[in-house]
């Protein structure tokens, strides 16, 4: 984990309102594992005050990339960073996805910007598994970003591209008509989607790691601000920022 004033080396609108920002940091690029995140201070002022967390999306040599859409002031400021400008990045943070030996088929399921961690997961897992199937959902075709992924199955709410409906429904159809060997699901997206995905994983008895979002103040296990309820165990809550953001779907209680 380092705190670095990194130089922005690229910024692209890769889909409608979706930005990729690239920055140089040897440490973050070379040590980040899939599912980990960086915590970005978008400016020196106090609006916004807190850092903003983003999954490490892709790494290449000494550069790392994040992908995001504009939801508020922080992401708006970030989307306006020009190459050459500086950002204050802290990372890598959190517990990566578990991709132990024995998994043959990696099934990645992304809702909206939940696609963020999967380019890096694809990058790292490619030589280890036999097969990758990637399900990417978005509201509409213009908001779909599917680069750096393998075997992409697209789904849109309005049917403008790929399957009409949710990614989870699409995955269910896929599982009905395809045999998958030693599969594991990796999911990231809105809570409602994670609920559906978690249910599906239980039904098919497939191991499933989910990457959660949630308000964070520190991102480093200091403030205790990001609890997620555990199914059982000695303590009632885990912390999204350090114990997560990735969790085995059977170990946590997703919020309503």
């Amino acid at each position: 984990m380092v705190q670095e004033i990194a130089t922005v080396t690229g910024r692209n609108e890769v889909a409608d309102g979706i930005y990729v920002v690239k920055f140089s940091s040897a440490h973050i690029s070379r040590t980040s594992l899939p599912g980990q995140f960086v915590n970005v201070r978008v400016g020196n002022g106090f609006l916004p005050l807190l850092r903003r967390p983003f999954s490490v999306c892709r790494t290449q040599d000494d550069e790392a990339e994040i992908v995001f859409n504009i939801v508020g002031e922080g992401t708006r400021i970030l989307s306006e960073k020009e190459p050459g400008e500086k950002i204050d990045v802290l990372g890598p943070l959190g517990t990566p996805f578990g991709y132990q030996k024995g998994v043959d088929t990696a099934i990645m399921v992304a809702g909206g910007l939940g696609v963020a961690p999967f380019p890096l997961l694809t990058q790292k897992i490619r030589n280890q598994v036999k097969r990758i199937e990637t399900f990417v959902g978005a509201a509409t075709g213009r908001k779909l970003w599917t680069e750096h992924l393998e075997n992409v199955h697209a789904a849109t709410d309005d049917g403008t591209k790929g399957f009409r409906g949710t990614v989870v429904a699409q995955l269910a159809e896929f599982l009905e008509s395809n045999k998958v060997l030693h599969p594991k699901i990796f999911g990231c997206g809105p809570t409602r989607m994670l609920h559906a995905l978690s249910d599906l994983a239980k039904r098919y008895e497939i191991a499933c790691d989910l990457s959660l979002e949630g308000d964070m103040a520190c991102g480093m296990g200091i403030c205790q601000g990001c609890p997620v309820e555990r199914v059982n165990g000695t303590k009632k809550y885990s912390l999204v920022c350090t114990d997560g953001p990735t969790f085995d779907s059977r170990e946590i209680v997703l919020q309503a």
Partner: protein
Amino acid sequence: MTKTSFKLRDVEFKNRVLVASGTFGYGDELKDLVDVNMLGGMITKSLSWKPRDGNPPGRIAETTGGMLNSIGLANIGVHHFVKDKLPYLKTLNTVVIVNIAASSIDEYCDVLSLLDQEAAVDGFEINVSCPNVKEGGLSFGTDCDATAEITSRLRRLTEKPLIIKLTPNVTHVSEFAKAVARAGADAVSLINTVIGMAVDIKTRKPRLSTVTGGLSGPAIKPIALAKVYEAAQSVDIPIIGIGGIASAEDALEFLLVGASAVQIGTMNYVDPSASVKIAQGMAEFAARNNVGDLAEFVGALDANVEFSVLQSWL
């Protein structure tokens, strides 16, 4: 070179910047990012006798220039702390203050007694912004008699520096400062967070699971300064200023109104190196202005005494 150190009882702090309770964990989490030995001291997360799970999710919410929290004093409990955290803290070359939270006066006493034997614990800060179970959950910190009683009970149990951390959510913080000074506190620290809330208008729910919580960060700095000033006008024991400090300039404002030292809270989340930068910046400002000892700033406000809090028509 400017003198930056100060003393509380026998304990010498190498400079006047500490990290605030709840914003620096138990000291080991940030060791890769911050050299805590560059600070005057570190204050632990509040510890209670037993571990506490804390409040349900919906524990933090950002606001203009600040944040709300309702952590519910989630902590590992004093036994776990002694076993797993103290060994690391022993290796530090800075002052370690343990902050204590409790739901009864006896619990405060038990936690303090247990820790008083530990050489690695240099002193105590008492978080009185805790619900008094005997009084139906009313906060000790808004009850002047209860605050004084906690102080005098604890005073009998330790020779180490005893700092009482005051809440700003009272009409006259000076009454509380006077009461704890009389009861034997070595210092008061203030402010703890200001009660606040935020609502999500789409769901119509409070953003915090406990409805209200504590406001911290730069937004509250003016409030904290006024409270520290009020306390400084009323007692002679040292005051440690807390609230929204983000720069050396902010810290010096607190010294001028009467604080002997400061604590950095929320800004540790935003910039883990903030406290070290502030400590350095204070020394540099002093050197640039030919001030040989930071003590010269303490209470050096050039205020027109004709006017006061009371007489000003807001």
